[in-house]
């Protein structure tokens, strides 16, 4: 970069500088806003497709997805204004409009970066019935076993997430235990050699379920009835 302190014969008048900067700002503003507006629909559509794909993967019988938020005041469809501390979740319905399950996201720091998972919750069984990985940057061949290892995925076919008597906390916190030592339905058997990533998955689910379920379960009756498919 040239040294800007060199003595100049004629320095540019401020008026010219302001005019140019104004022109640049206007052009750039127009470009950004047009790009934003032009792509808004396409981006929203992409996100909807990605979400549906992820939810259909963890809740196989699903045919449509609706997004809700659960707050201290109850459940409401996702809108532009969200109450403080509300947790987002997805309700999946089959072709006839019956509720097939709930899906929610969990995230925790793994080995390299955040591990994001989508888990399926069955209100009838009060258990997690499926797991899908949304995004992760874990070590290929080691950390990425979380979506290929059949034994690990079996953990999430009936993971107990019952609430305790006063419906404020999970009766038993989800725990990730050493490979081969799983004894209770609320424990997750870690993948041998990929403990950090396994623990991230467990932690993500635990935090998300502990926040969401106490808000969701008391109101879950609303989901099966009040929605059109």
């Amino acid at each position: 970069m040239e040294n800007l302190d060199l003595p100049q014969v004629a320095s540019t008048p401020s008026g010219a500088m302001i005019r140019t900067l104004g022109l640049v700002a206007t052009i750039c503003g127009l470009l950004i806003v047009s790009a934003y507006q032009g792509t808004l629909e396409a981006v929203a559509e992409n996100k909807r497709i990605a979400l549906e794909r992820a939810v259909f993967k963890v809740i196989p019988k699903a045919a449509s997805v609706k997004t809700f938020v659960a707050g201290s005041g109850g459940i409401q469809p996702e809108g532009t204004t969200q109450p403080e501390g509300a947790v987002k979740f997805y309700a999946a319905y089959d072709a006839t409009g019956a509720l097939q399950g709930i899906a929610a996201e969990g995230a925790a720091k793994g080995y390299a970066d955040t591990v994001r998972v989508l888990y399926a919750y069955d209100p009838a069984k009060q258990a997690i019935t499926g797991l899908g990985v949304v995004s992760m940057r874990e070590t290929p061949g080691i950390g990425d076993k979380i979506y290929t290892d059949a034994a690990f995925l079996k953990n999430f076919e009936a993971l107990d997430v019952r609430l305790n008597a006063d419906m404020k906390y999970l009766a038993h916190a989800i725990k990730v235990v050493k490979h081969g030592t799983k004894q209770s339905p609320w424990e997750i058997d870690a993948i041998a050699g990929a403990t950090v990533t396994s623990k991230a998955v467990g932690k993500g689910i635990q935090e998300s379920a502990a926040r969401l379920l106490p808000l969701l379960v008391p109101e879950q009756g609303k989901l099966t009835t009040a929605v059109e498919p």
Partner: protein
Amino acid sequence: MPESLSSIFIGTLLANNFVLAMFLGLCPFLGVSARLNTALPMGAATTFVMLVASLCAYGLNWLVTALDLQFLRLIAYIVIIASAVQLVEMFLKKNSPVLFRALGIYLPLITTNCAVLGVALFQTAREYSFLQALTFAAAGGAGFTLALTLMAGLRERLNLANVPNVVQGTALSLMLAGLLSLAFMGFAGLGAGE
């Protein structure tokens, strides 16, 4: 995501070192790191700018979100960073001309240092709180300085060694960086929570 401050600090300093694991701040890392006594001031100046950038990014993000102008976020960040670097330059020129001359062209180049913008972008993406963001920036800067110092020390030693001509220069720095990065992988999982 409630990450503890110490976990962020140790994790970003060692396991997810800005230079050796996240590939941020490579231009100065490969360029400035030839001498030990410029490495430390460079690292310090960059760390300071990173802290300022982190502060401003936190405020700007709040403002941009409140006004629903997310598409202006990137421009706002980069303009703030450019201004911060300009201020640091003026400050150094006035108070420490020796340092100013020693850092030379690399001082204004801190504006285009991926590490500085990287701090702002990553803390926004991870939705860190104010304290978490500051810790992240401090650790990132410290990690950057650490990597810079290590590389400078190694290259100073290698200047006296018999290195084949074909390898000299950036190729050598990259190989060294690869080995350092490999070594730092030993820190993996540090600070990853209980």
